[in-house]
């Protein structure tokens, strides 16, 4: 199982968020909340790209799940932002 916006390679995951639907502050806040388990790199261009590198060694499948959990977490922040 994989989402279109997620690429797994070299022990890390790269998630591409559409700037139409996701805000950088929400992504950064989510990254801070995940910071005990992973380190992050961000690129802001046409898309918002978050590169995740877990601190423990994970299998590709575990990485996918981690990346998708991160996507859900960011979506939670987006929803909270929209509601408030």
């Amino acid at each position, binding site marked *: *199982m*994989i*989402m*279109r*916006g*997620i690429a797994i390679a070299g022990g890390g995951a790269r998630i591409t968020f*559409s700037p*139409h*639907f*996701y805000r950088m502050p929400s992504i950064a806040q989510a990254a801070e909340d995940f910071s005990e388990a992973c380190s992050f790199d961000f690129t802001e261009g046409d898309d918002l790209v978050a590169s995740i590198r877990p601190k423990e060694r994970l299998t590709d499948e575990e990485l996918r799940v981690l990346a*998708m*959990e991160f*996507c*859900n977490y960011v*979506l*939670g922040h*987006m*929803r909270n932002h*929209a*509601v408030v």
Partner: protein
Amino acid sequence: MATKGQASNGNVTFDEKNGSVIISVNPAIYPLDVIYPAAYVFMDRAYIMIDGDPKDEIFVEMVSKEGCSLVELAGDFNNELLNYAVYKKQVERNGPIREALITRALLSNGVQLVPEPLPQAADAPKDAKGAVR
């Protein structure tokens, strides 16, 4: 448009190979502030990603968690969109009435902006022997 390994049904495209379903949403009918809360409801059942063009067509991609049926997910998501769209419409319709009721409630005699001064000892009611009650 469905490709090999995909099947479409209305606004829904199933991708059995990836175990995902992509739901196409018309933002003219369901705006983004309806899509976010509807998607939020499904976060315990699916991994969700939103993509597309906010003016033309929005894609909600869902990957099922722990064996939830993709058909069920897609159908329930469409229902949830409708649920929040109706809720939003009702909130908008009732907005002026709600504001009027809250304003009236706040301005009624229950609210006192300047507190009354506490009675002085000399003004306090006394009994027959002159003791302050």
